[in-house]
């Protein structure tokens, strides 16, 4: 039977198992939206295309499935750019469909034309312009395959209006043929043996876990590996929830706002085992003094990540699903040596405990002003272990990483690589759409919140009971912190001079607004907020000039931390 392009698109999505799509209509996707009325796919109408893409991205982060978003051509399509770049930097599987002007008009500066293939080339894993309806099913099949396989990433499909309207016989291909793309590699066994030897020889090993562990759902295997060698673990922002921070071997996050003990351990280590991490500059600090005495084992599915920033002794190109169990099995074959290693590294573990006692992650409680860290601690106490926490970008994001002990994988949703303010609220929305029954919370600053606050309308419309915690310091706090520390307290354009009444704002959208201004109100507001049905804003007026510490100044070594203001 013949189908139109727009019908084919929706049918392909259904066959890919897509249940929910986020998007925003317009002239060049009107056919798709018309056919959507006859499709079983749910659609959530966000209030901005950027938000639709962030929501699809978070949907993918919490479910492990491919997120999908729609936008119209021109401004709708260009509004997806930040969302695509955010997902690209964090390797999130996503397919974004944009409308395009009819093929005969492409290149003519037609109304609402933008060259999305050109614009999104460097911020997508791949992109397609569909020029013939006969190619559409194959392209959608490939788009999903590319998005979710290997190192995942967003794929954009630009779909001209005339292609949506023309018809062809529909047949969904069963397999994907891409001769230039063979992503599932299995690590070289000789390198694996070398890695096992290095691990057995190490006396100060550190396991450094990145987003790859989350993306590949390797938490259990990671736990087994770590318990096998009893090595301390540090994670990046993206790796955070894949290893429970309550575990005695967890050192929390490393890098610019990492813990003192994680950064000291990395600097002093003799073996760094990097799992699905990419040695980003926020993690390494000054390369010259990064883990200077350590041998490095680097496991990553993307060969370009390996040796890009740091020297590597044993590169292991492969999926963590392949490497991690093999590595553990390889080690377990050496039972006696392993026991010796565990005994011989006891001093190292003790050293880390000592560092931790010297400089734990901490803050000074005050009587009359709410400390932002206190709100996050309380929140952890009062939320379920499977609560999903999204954040925006800034100090509140780093405090969340430092003070919210994540326990379960895929419960922490944050823009790590791009650092996109305005990500958290639509991300929480996407996560709640995926799991309507779980607690979903956006931890925000007053600055970031205002970058996508229109999504309150979407939350209320779809009855998505996201709870929004605003740590209101009336500052663009993270930038203010840099100005305080490195620019002599010249607060150029970081004071949010107009205090917004967030409680009234919530009410204007039909949500609930609560506010705490004193420490003794914090717990009550959180309890009430969590219990109130529907979306709730909980605004906390917090200490205005609190800093995120420790801090490794940009360009300094990991062991050159600022510990107190």
């Amino acid at each position: 039977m013949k189908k139109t392009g727009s019908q084919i698109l929706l049918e392909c999505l259904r066959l890919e198992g897509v249940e929910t799509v986020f998007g925003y209509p317009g002239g060049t996707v009107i056919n798709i939206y018309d056919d959507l009325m006859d499709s079983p796919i749910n659609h959530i109408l966000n209030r901005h295309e950027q938000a639709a893409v962030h929501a699809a991205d978070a949907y993918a982060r919490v479910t492990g499935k491919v997120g999908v978003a729609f936008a119209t051509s021109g401004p709708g399509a260009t509004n997806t750019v930040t969302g695509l770049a955010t997902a690209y930097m964090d390797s999130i599987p996503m397919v974004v469909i944009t409308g395009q002007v009819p093929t005969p008009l492409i290149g003519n500066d037609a109304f609402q034309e933008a060259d999305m293939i050109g614009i999104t080339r460097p911020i997508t894993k791949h992109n397609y312009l569909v020029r013939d309806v006969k190619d559409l099913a194959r392209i959608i099949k490939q788009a999903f395959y590319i998005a979710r396989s290997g190192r995942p990433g967003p794929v954009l499909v630009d779909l001209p209006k005339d292609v949506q309207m023309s018809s062809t016989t529909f047949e969904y291909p069963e397999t994907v043929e891409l001769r230039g793309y063979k992503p599932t590699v299995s690590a070289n066994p000789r390198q694996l043996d070398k890695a096992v030897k290095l691990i057995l020889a190490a006396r100060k090993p550190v396991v450094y876990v990145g987003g790859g562990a989350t993306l590949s759902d390797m938490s259990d295997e990671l736990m087994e590996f770590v318990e096998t060698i009893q090595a301390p673990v540090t994670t990046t922002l993206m790796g955070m929830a894949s290893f429970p921070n309550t575990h005695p071997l967890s050192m929390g996050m490393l890098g610019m706002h990492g813990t003192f003990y994680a950064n000291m351990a990395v600097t002093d280590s003799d073996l760094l085992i990097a799992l699905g991490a990419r040695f980003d500059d926020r993690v390494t600090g000054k390369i010259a003094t990064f883990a200077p005495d350590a041998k490095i084992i680097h496991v990553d599915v993307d060969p370009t990540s390996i040796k890009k920033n740091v020297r590597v002794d044993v590169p292991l190109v492969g999926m963590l699903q392949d490497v991690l169990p093999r590595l553990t099995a390889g080690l377990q074959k050496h039972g006696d040596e392993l026991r010796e290693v565990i005994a011989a590294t006891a001093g190292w573990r003790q050293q880390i405990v000592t560092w931790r006692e010297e400089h734990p992650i901490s803050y000074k409680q005050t009587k009359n002003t709410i400390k932002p860290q206190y709100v996050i601690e309380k929140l952890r106490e009062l939320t379920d272990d499977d609560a999903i926490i999204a954040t925006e970008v800034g100090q509140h994001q780093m405090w969340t990483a430092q003070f919210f002990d994540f326990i379960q994988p895929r419960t922490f949703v944050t823009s790590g690589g791009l650092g996109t303010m305005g990500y958290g609220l639509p991300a929480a929305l996407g996560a709640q759409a995926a799991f309507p029954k779980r607690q979903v919370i956006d931890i925000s600053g007053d600055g970031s919140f205002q970058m996508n606050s229109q999504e309150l309308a979407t939350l209320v419309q779809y009855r998505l009971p996201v709870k929004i915690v605003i740590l209101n310091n009336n500052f663009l706090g993270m930038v203010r912190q840099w100005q305080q520390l490195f620019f002599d307290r010249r607060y150029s354009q970081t004071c949010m001079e107009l205090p917004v009444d967030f409680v009234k704002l919530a009410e204007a959208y039909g949500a609930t607004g609560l506010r705490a201004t004193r420490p003794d109100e914090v717990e009550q507001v959180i309890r009430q907020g969590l219990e109130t049905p529907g979306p709730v804003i909980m605004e906390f007026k917090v200490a205005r000039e609190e800093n995120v510490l420790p801090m490794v100044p940009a360009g300094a070594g990991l062991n050159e931390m600022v510990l107190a203001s």
Partner: protein
Amino acid sequence: MKHTISVLVENEFGVLPRVAGLFSGRGFNIDSLSVAPTLDPTISRMTIVTRGDNRILEQISKQLNKLIDVIKVIDFTEQNFVEREMVLVKVTADAEYRAEVLRIADIFRANVVDVTARSYSIEATGTPAKLDALIELLRPLGIKELVRSGPIVLGRGPKAWKSSE
């Protein structure tokens, strides 16, 4: 250090800007680039001359391989290869230098492909160094216009690079 790499790519719409964009976006140099379809019309072959140390070259090669449309990347640096480039030069050929231009062309086994009363257009092929030498000799006689193709390369010996390898 100079490196010559061949890249086999899908002969499809929009592949060239992906490759070019990768170089500019990551700050890699392109000294020259030439591209045309291969025996298999669904595949194009690009020859790229680039510069960088081994670490950069390794990144270039890995990044190229990461592109979905790239089928194969061959770095010729460590191999024996034949390298050829073509140049077309339009030189001033006033009466007093006409014979000199022809003599130089002859030495370089170049062909005159167009003649007027005041100009010769010359075609030459060879290694880039040979073409440099030719151009240096013609320069004092007056070069009006010049176009080089950028080198193309082929590995020496019986082994051949195909997309399937």
